[in-house]
């Protein structure tokens, strides 16, 4: 419990301290999550320099966020780090397991750096475009609604859960839980968005009622990943709450969703 409050304190404090602190905290989160991922996935002995190169996605992406270069941010990870990773692997020259390793590394940097980076990039919204609570309010609202979506889904599953979303991944996430989360999170998002975002009612409802689908899919996908890797939690970073990868699973799916919808409906900056 203490560890969880410490994380809230860190993220909340960073949001209050401004965009520099926020970008640094998110960069640290990306690093910790990517390191957990790199530790658990299969890599080849020769790939150590490649893994180091993948870590370079973090300073470069967050550098683009700090410099407010959205166009650069969009192409760094999915194109240039991706191409660089594959090139470096080809130069090293081991071919067995080439595609598997290239895929595994690319997947990790998309989830841990590119997707999570969208949450951090919201802090660079110009104050005039952001809602009444400023850019920090946007980031806070995204995180709070994602946590609510997870919590409502867990509570719904606990009290009404019958039909697993995926029979193979077990009874942890259910259709009933998702329905409860859609109702609760959608209502809360629509009701509160006027305080945190510049959205009007209809777009807010659209984003809010679909957000739990992304959140639940994010954690379901991470559950599948952990099942393949043979672990229950990604690490013991927050005892009782798992590791960084466990905690960012939902956010890695909700962040791009909320970011792009805000960009379409309200923000001219992106």
């Amino acid at each position, binding site marked *: 419990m203490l560890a969880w409050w410490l994380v809230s304190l860190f993220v909340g404090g960073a949001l209050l301290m401004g965009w520099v602190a926020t970008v640094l905290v998110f960069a640290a989160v990306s690093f910790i999550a990517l*390191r957990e991922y790199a*530790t658990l996935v299969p890599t080849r002995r020769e790939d150590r320099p490649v893994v180091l190169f993948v870590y370079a996605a973090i300073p470069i992406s967050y550098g683009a966020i700090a410099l407010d270069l959205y166009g650069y941010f969009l192409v760094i990870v999915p194109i240039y780090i991706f191409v660089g990773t594959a090139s470096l692997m080809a130069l090293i020259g081991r071919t067995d397991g080439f595609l598997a390793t290239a895929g595994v590394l690319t997947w990790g940097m998309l989830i841990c750096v590119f997707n999570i980076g969208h949450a951090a990039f919201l802090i660079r919204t110009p104050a005039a475009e952001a809602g009444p609570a400023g850019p920090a309010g946007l980031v806070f609202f995204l995180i709070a609604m994602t946590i609510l979506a997870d919590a409502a889904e867990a509570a719904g599953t606990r009290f009404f859960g019958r039909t697993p979303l995926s029979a193979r991944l077990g009874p942890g996430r259910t259709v009933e839980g998702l329905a409860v989360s859609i109702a609760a999170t959608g209502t809360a998002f629509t009701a509160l968005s006027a305080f945190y975002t510049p959205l009007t009612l209809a777009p807010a409802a659209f984003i809010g009622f679909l957000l739990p689908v992304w959140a639940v899919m994010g954690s379901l996908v991470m559950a599948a990943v952990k099942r393949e890797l*043979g672990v229950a939690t990604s690490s013991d970073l927050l005892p009782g709450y798992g590791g960084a990868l466990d905690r960012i699973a939902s956010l890695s799916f909700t962040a791009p969703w909320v970011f792009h919808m805000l960009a379409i409906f309200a923000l001219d900056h992106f």
Partner: protein
Amino acid sequence: MLLLLRQIILWTLVRPFALLVLGFETRGRVHLPRTGPAIVAANHNSHLDTLLLISLFPAAALSRLRPVAAADTFTATPLVSWFSRRIIGVLPVDRGRPERGADPLAGCREALARKEILIIFPEGTRGDPEELGRFKSGIARLAEAEPDAPIVPVYLQGAGRVLPRGSMLLVPFNCFAVIGAPIRFAGKRPEFMARLKDAIEALRADAPPLRWL
């Protein structure tokens, strides 16, 4: 004065590095000896192993902590030698064939008599990354000579990927230590060695899976 410097290094460099860069996680920390004489026996894959083990101990124990290391590596130049002995607290041991009548483990015996905590890597070398090599028998002779000293088995994972032998490139991966219940010398040396190796192998089951193809 030097101890204060060592404690400052522990707090500002060793522990932050272990926790922030290497995401160091520990299981079974209660088994760690607080007072000497004691021997901490761990598998060895990287120079970082010593750093990780030292980071686990309270600052107050620093003056009693003696990592046993190869004299040929750690006393190679005067500067390295000074840093190893004075700052890390290394107890150098000659790896070569000893002269007649000389006891290469005399320094270790004396340290145990002074109630110090030895850190020993029974493989005697870092070997192939993330693989457990053959144990050398020195630790069994020490344990036999000093039956009061508990031997604490530790399984270390990850440092061999972060900084393996022969590499200068540091790549962050999470590191783990699983610390087991102390064992004591009993029976004959080969039996004890097998028991120690089994204990460290068994601790591996508590560490997260490692897939290095």
